[in-house]
């Protein structure tokens, strides 16, 4: 292992290990519906604060293979388990991991597989409505431009599934869907609360 000075190491870490993510807005009253095209600037003017009671987040991972000749588009995703679902991409650029909502939907190129996995692409579940408990199943509806809507029964478990039955809809084959267990988090939730007041 290369030995380097603390200053250089910190610089390297700063360059390599930052994960910028773009906070994105939503239509506050549109429960469960995802409109990935909204931008923070556009929506922040609404100020229709939901005062969400729960604010845990989760992630759904899966693979989508387009076996057809035409590209498709994952337009949105919804689940009753969360107030909102966003497609988040992860790109590596100059050693910086950049995570952001995939505004406008996610291309599923013809003949290719898009893989959602930890540390990479994921469907972010925002404001969980209940705990995602290990062993449970959550239903999530994916809406594609061409393949239409398909509802998946996603197992909640700690590891990616090793074998499962593919779901085929149109030219798309969806496999290996899973969600990591996550708490809905009722404590200290909702709007940003005043700074924590530690006892010391």
């Amino acid at each position, binding site marked *: 292992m*290369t030995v380097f000075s603390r200053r250089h190491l910190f610089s390297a870490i700063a360059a390599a290990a*930052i994960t910028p*993510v773009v906070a994105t807005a939503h239509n506050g009253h549109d429960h469960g519906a995802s409109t990935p095209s909204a931008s923070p600037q556009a929506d922040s003017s609404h100020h229709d604060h939901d005062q*969400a009671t729960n604010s845990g*987040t989760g992630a759904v991972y899966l693979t989508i293979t387009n076996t057809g000749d035409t590209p498709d588009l994952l337009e949105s995703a919804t689940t009753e388990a969360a107030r909102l679902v966003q497609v988040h991409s992860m790109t590596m650029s100059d050693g910086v991991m950049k*995570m952001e909502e995939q505004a406008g939907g996610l291309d599923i190129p013809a003949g290719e597989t898009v893989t959602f996995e930890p540390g990479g692409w994921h469907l*972010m579940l925002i404001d969980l409505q209940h705990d995602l408990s290990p062993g449970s199943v959550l239903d999530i509806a994916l809406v594609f431009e061409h393949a239409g809507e398909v509802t998946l029964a996603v197992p909640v478990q700690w590891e990616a599934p090793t074998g499962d039955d593919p779901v085929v809809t149109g030219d798309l084959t969806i496999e290996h869907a899973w969600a*990591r267990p996550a708490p809905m988090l009722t404590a200290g939730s909702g709007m940003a609360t005043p700074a924590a007041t530690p006892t010391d």
Partner: protein
Amino acid sequence: MQADSPEQSSNPTATRFSNGVIFSGIAVMVVVIAVLFTGFYWPGWMKDDPPYEFHGGNFTPPNPAASIELTDQDGNPFTLAQQSGKVSIIYFGYTYCPDFCPTTLVDLQKVEDALGEDADKVDVILVTVDPERDTPERLKEYLAFFNPEFIGLTGTVEQIDALKGPWGIIATPQPADGSGQYLVDHSTALYAVDQDGNLRLTWAYGTPVEHITEDIQHILK
């Protein structure tokens, strides 16, 4: 011992004598070399492992880790100094984080599992980079989902900000969405502080569980 080479000698007897001396000299040298090897090197191979190469970034020489004085998930004061005698794996993250943080915590649980009995000598510490939302209660609720033994730390915004420089952490909240929720850009590295309070290692996001485990096991030796 000085021996004439055959080429320098015109006397056949002298040549034979010289050959004998040369053979004797070689024999002695072989024995001497063998003894040197046996005496100084062979036991070295037998006794010592080759120098361990850490998988993680190695702080050399180790220096005392920057102090951390915050509040844990039970509302109790916490100082890094109280971890003396234990190895601490420190992660800077937050509970609203959907992917990197839970992925890392799951990995660290696997490290704890892999350490077996040694897990008692290792603590996982999540320091929030989102003190405005991450109250002790929220950290407690969150960590209970992974491992209630994990330590969660929070404090005031000023307290957390004060850690960023010494620990080389970047954490920047993004604009809030319509419901006031926001994501935080943050560093994803892990840090190991040894039993003596020295900052020893850092691992980049995605370092395999086995590598972290091996490094920790070496620090514990």
